[in-house]
């Protein structure tokens, strides 16, 4: 089947002037959301898909932003979305946005606080997955979308899809919850906190107000990303890709880069620290930690999911140890318990948590088959 990219895309921005009260009680007086759209919204408004991003994602989901640098500026899920691709833009109108608190143009800690004229920094309130759903619903209103044909996301994005079905059940017909979990474990939170500590203890962090010191906690953010990156990969994949391969000729008996894996992680850390905002990273990891829709019902996930009327696709990956298949099965079991519609695929993949971003034949076939079922 011939498939191609949605091509050159340009981001748009929507301004929301009505204050948004967050779960924490804090109020964001006004905010901008940056988004991209692919495909065409049909007259009935029944073919809209919301793609929610994960920890370090953003609105640029598909296509390229610079025709001169197509490869370098491809969206983070370009292999999934486009004409003839599993999420087919010939059929669907796809919306990707940068969440509130992000660092890609939507209002977040690095945006100017109109009250002070300085970046929000430490004053930007922590947001939750529930808050994102509310903000996303405002964007849906703005775009004339009463009900999403589907809300789709991987990892933290999958958690948003799940939250949509609980908070606004009559505004979402299908949810694709990919490589996600119904809540973080102590181990997940522990990894996040070590990452946060790396940032918070960087002398350049300045309590979150590093912007006014014209610096940024690059060392902390780099470490945070290195740690996070390890949890996105699988042991198998690391062994295969790097093993104990050395960068140079033999051991140097020092603390420089000796093993290939060290070189790789440092490179990933440096690259990430050069473009991502440390406060957004902190905020995103907190949103992950706080996510626990079953908390209000005493830990009973089925009770939490009971209001959902959407049909679900749940997908997990065999080597994902961050959010393992067993975590997805918790969601599936709760849905089955409620008598809700759910299809679940466990994809054999060697790429760990990052598998959800990869082009895998079975994975893409499953998403395609499910999306084909959705009436528009």
């Amino acid at each position, binding site marked *: 089947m011939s498939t191609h990219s949605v091509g050159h895309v340009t981001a748009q921005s929507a301004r929301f002037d009505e204050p948004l009260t967050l779960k924490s009680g804090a109020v964001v007086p006004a905010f901008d959301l940056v988004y991209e759209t692919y495909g065409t919204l049909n007259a009935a408004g029944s073919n809209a898909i919301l793609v929610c991003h994960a920890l370090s994602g953003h609105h640029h989901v598909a296509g390229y932003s610079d025709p001169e640098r197509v490869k370098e500026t491809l969206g983070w899920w370009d292999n999934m979305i486009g004409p003839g691709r599993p999420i087919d833009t010939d059929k669907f109108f796809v919306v990707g946005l940068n969440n509130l608190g992000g660092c890609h143009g939507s209002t977040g800690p690095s945006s100017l606080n109109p009250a002070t004229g300085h970046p929000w920094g430490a004053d930007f309130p922590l947001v939750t997955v529930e808050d994102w759903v509310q903000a996303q619903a405002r964007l849906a209103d703005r775009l004339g979308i009463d009900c999403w044909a589907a809300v789709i996301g991987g990892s933290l994005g999958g958690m948003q899809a799940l939250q949509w079905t609980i908070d606004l059940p009559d505004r979402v017909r299908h949810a694709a919850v990919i490589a996600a979990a119904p809540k973080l474990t102590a181990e997940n939170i522990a990894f996040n906190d070590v990452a946060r500590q790396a940032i918070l203890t960087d002398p350049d962090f300045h309590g979150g107000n590093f912007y006014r010191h014209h610096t940024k906690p690059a060392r902390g953010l780099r470490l945070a990303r290195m740690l996070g990156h390890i949890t996105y990969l699988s042991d198998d994949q690391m062994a295969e890709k790097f093993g104990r391969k050395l960068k140079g000729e033999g051991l140097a008996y020092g603390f420089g880069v000796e093993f290939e894996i060290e070189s790789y992680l440092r490179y990933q850390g440096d690259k990430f620290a050069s473009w991502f905002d440390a406060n957004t990273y902190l905020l995103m990891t907190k949103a992950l930690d706080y996510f626990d829709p079953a908390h209000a019902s005493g830990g009973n996930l089925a009770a939490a999911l009971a209001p959902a009327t959407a049909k679900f696709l749940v997908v997990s990956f065999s080597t994902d140890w961050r959010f393992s298949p067993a975590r997805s099965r918790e969601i*599936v079991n709760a849905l*089955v*318990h409620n008598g809700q519609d759910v*299809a679940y*695929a466990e994809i*054999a993949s060697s790429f760990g948590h990052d598998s959800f971003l990869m082009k895998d034949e*079975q994975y893409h076939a*499953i998403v395609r088959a499910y999306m084909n*079922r959705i009436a528009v």
Partner: protein
Amino acid sequence: MTENAIALGRPDFDVISGWVQPNERVLDLGCGDGSLLKLLIATRGVRGWGIELDNAGVLAAIGNGINVIQSDLEVGLSGFENGEFDHVVLSRTLQTVRHTQRIIEEMLRVGREAVVSFPNFAYWKNRMAVMAGRMPVSEDLPFQWFDTPNIRFFTIADFDALCAAMRIVVRERMVLDDKGNTVKDEQNFLGSLAVYRLARG
């Protein structure tokens, strides 16, 4: 056989259809592409879920709009609570399962009733094949001995004995010959396929 079951070549599906009621919750173990569930949903109005391990089966079931859950059969049931389903179906698969008693126990834990169908090894044509010195290959045992997924070979009489030993009540039993016709007499001799409706005693 109904037209649907004829089209599918699965006379046991008709028997199973007759045992489920509208709005019941049905779990089909080893559901493949979801043909049985699709039939039960269309003709009986049940709410259905299936468990399937094979990638191609899962993909086909999703294409058929079935609530398929990709999982190993023998671990797949452990996540479900007691009595979540009205019927748990295991059609033509029991003979491929290693832990026979455990799967039946699990089916009757998560389901009010279990429906099990299996090829009867004591069917007269199978006996003839063995008498002639060869392992049987038939409509209901369609594999050569060297590539069969079947690991348990048992008869209607064997299964009755197991149910008795496990204190499981046989609520109903339908036996079919290799043309899909109902067999009333000498079932362990004249029956090629048996379909049981089981419950806890």
